[in-house]
């Protein structure tokens, strides 16, 4: 139990360092939904670093599947519900201009009001949904 929150803190710190590094090198906010979503838009010009970032992130998943497969858990929901969840996350993050990384990590650190409101909102609806649907279905 104690090691769980130490890993959470260490992993979080690494996410913070990576996000700060993207600001230092590219001057960009490390918002995953924005980086991924803009690749689906035809008017996005600077695709190179976005594609490289996503490939880098995916490579962590590939390495994990070999060296630490238990680091990635399977879903707690049935496949149809997983698809519904994915649709909502995709649509909602683009409509709301960000997700856990852009609004959560980067936005809250900058004391951005829009991000603060977004985080309060998605934490509230997330908690409500998780509680109503339950831990395993």
């Amino acid at each position, binding site marked *: 139990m104690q090691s769980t929150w130490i890993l*959470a803190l260490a992993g*979080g710190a690494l996410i913070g360092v990576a996000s700060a590094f993207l600001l230092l090198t590219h001057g960009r906010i490390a918002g995953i939904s924005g980086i991924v979503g803009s690749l689906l838009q035809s008017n996005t010009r600077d695709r190179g670093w976005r594609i490289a970032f996503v490939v*880098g992130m995916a490579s962590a*998943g590939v390495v994990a599947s070999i060296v630490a497969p238990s680091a990635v858990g399977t879903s707690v929901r049935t496949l149809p519900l997983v698809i519904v969840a994915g649709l909502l996350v995709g649509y909602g*993050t683009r409509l709301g201009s960000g997700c856990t990384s852009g609004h959560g990590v980067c936005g809250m650190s900058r004391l951005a009001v829009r991000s603060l409101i977004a985080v309060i909102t998605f934490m509230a609806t997330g908690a409500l949904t998780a509680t109503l649907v339950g831990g395993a279905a």
Partner: protein
Amino acid sequence: MTRTTSALLAGVVGALFGAGLLISGMTQPAKVVGFLDPTHGWDPSLAFVMAGAAGVYAILFRAIRKRGRPWLDVKFHLPARRDLDMPLILGAGIFGVGWGLGGLCPGPAIVAAASGTISGIAFVVAMLAGMYAQHRTTRA
């Protein structure tokens, strides 16, 4: 040269970000749902992910912003909007429902899909479709 450097550095940053997600536990949907649901044996450990990430970023952000410009660009690209509007709140609300349901947000979903889990791949395909749908409906 610069484009290669840019892609190389972005790739390294992406890999670090992904490693952070894996270490932190954000790629475990059961853990995320257990964090968001306080009524069934609450697991608060994921609050430390945000604390660690936002804490480190807050300090480094201030130091980096003192520089005139980033390494590979002429200026910083920071969101300038301050207004609160319906799309922001509605979008965040919808995202939260999906997060609480599936236990994955965009970053961890991509890492999970790349690791080869069926649920991760299904989630990401649906997420991309949801993003695309949003783009199509707002541009009209």
